[in-house]
């Protein structure tokens, strides 16, 4: 268990370094671990369900 946690710690750090190395001036990556949404506020980038029209709900 401890080793798995150690692996996750090292892996998490490795991910941050790789994430920081990507070119953010280009469109966001489709592969979500490396996209720019890790630093976007949900209210700015992710409209709430009722704002974009939830499935099965008629838009007025």
């Amino acid at each position, binding site marked *: 268990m401890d080793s798995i946690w150690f692996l996750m710690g090292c892996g998490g750090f*490795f991910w941050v370094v790789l994430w920081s190395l990507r070119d953010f001036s280009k469109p966001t990556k489709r592969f979500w671990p490396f996209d720019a949404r890790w630093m976007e506020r949900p*209210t700015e980038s992710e409209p709430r369900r009722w704002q974009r029209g939830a499935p099965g709900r008629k838009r007025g």
Partner: protein
Amino acid sequence: MRSVLFLCEMLALLPIVVARPFVGVLIFSFISFSNLHRFTWGFTTSLPWVYATVILTLIGCVVAREPKRLPINATTVLVLMFLIGITLTSMVALAPFDRVMTKWEAVAKVFFFLLVTAALLTDRYRIHALLWVMVISLGYYGVKGGGFTLLTGGGGRVMGPPSSMIADNNHLAAGLLVTLPIINYLRMQSAHRIVRIGLLAGMILTLFGVIGSYSRGALIGLTAVAFVLWLRSSNKAVTGVVIVVAVIAAVSVMPQEWKDRMWTLQDAQQTDSGQSRLAIWHAAWNMAVHRPLVGAGFLGTYTQSVIDEYAPGTVPRAVHSIWFETLGENGFPTFFVWLAISGVAVLNTFAIQRESKRIPELQWCRDLARMAQVSIVAYMTAGTFLSLSYWDFYFTFLVVIAATRVLVREEVRKSRAALSDDSGWRRGPLPGMLQPGLALAGRPIVAGQIPGARPQGGGVRGGAVAVRQAPSRPAAPGRPTTRTGRDG
């Protein structure tokens, strides 16, 4: 096996540092804050990772084309002054010279690298990456300690990594308290729901880790953090309920032994721990008063001969207070410089909030400033009973705040320039069409396009549209109102 894994990771990352020195900042921070290499239990435990990183980063700073600039601001000047101050006080320190130099080397390394960090924190992405590394480094122990506390019912103490600044349970608890608001900041800033849930779970477990440390100083710090967090939150009702429920849940898990220990806070001055703390604070104060310009130097309170001179009968030990430690070791001038670093950080947070108020894109700066205020209060409160005066994590965070302030200033300057450029009749929006903070956002307003206007009658999406009235309804909060042409 862990050694091999750690070695592979470092061998993969260190060569990158020469080309991308900011990676060196991330590696330095990760190793310094987490000390994860101490848990490899192999040959990698004792390898000089930090020195290798520092050397490669400095080479990278010279060789690489990566953006870098050392901003001359109050924080960097004060860090430089502090470096000079501790160097001077170490030269006239009263403790054995070799021990003083060892301590000086450790502290000077931290503060020197703060300048390198400040030079390389040039944009939001880097700030965010560094904050993630900080959270992973301390959250590693917070989540692990919280899980340990839950599984054992508070049966054991949560300790920090060996041979580090947060090895002691009290130090780790204070560190986790400082980290909690940063985790909350990252939680607020991620658009990924799973990440937000994961960070919330991490915060709760870290809270359990703080409680499970059995640190009385941390309990006082936790009270202060909870209060300031509630004070600085936007939704006070929900935040208040969440904090109260989380603290009650965490305390209810702990055994009677923990409650008995915390109960001693009522008459802290009568306990052995309280008495010895007061005695050593008195000794540190005496050192500062008798040597006001330079103090006793590093490790003065640990040295029997120094203690005998300034507070006979006191047992040499750690000062257990950031205030008295810095004052006794370095004297008043360096103490005030040290204090001013935090003071400037507090002023920076208020300035960030004030200056970025009209710029929607800088909401993240305001969030960071609010959470930074909580972290600073956590350090000041919990640190009153701990020897964490030169804690690299905290001072790196202050440098992050200073870098954020620089970014805010630049953005405000750009916005003002854009506003003055757009004041002409050709390019400027019509009166009444300027949404608050729109032009200030610094985004170019393309001629012929109306910010926020929706194409009508099958108009081309994002294309030029005829001049018409401003949108009658405000844009939905979830939409990027300032992105001309993408809304429609």
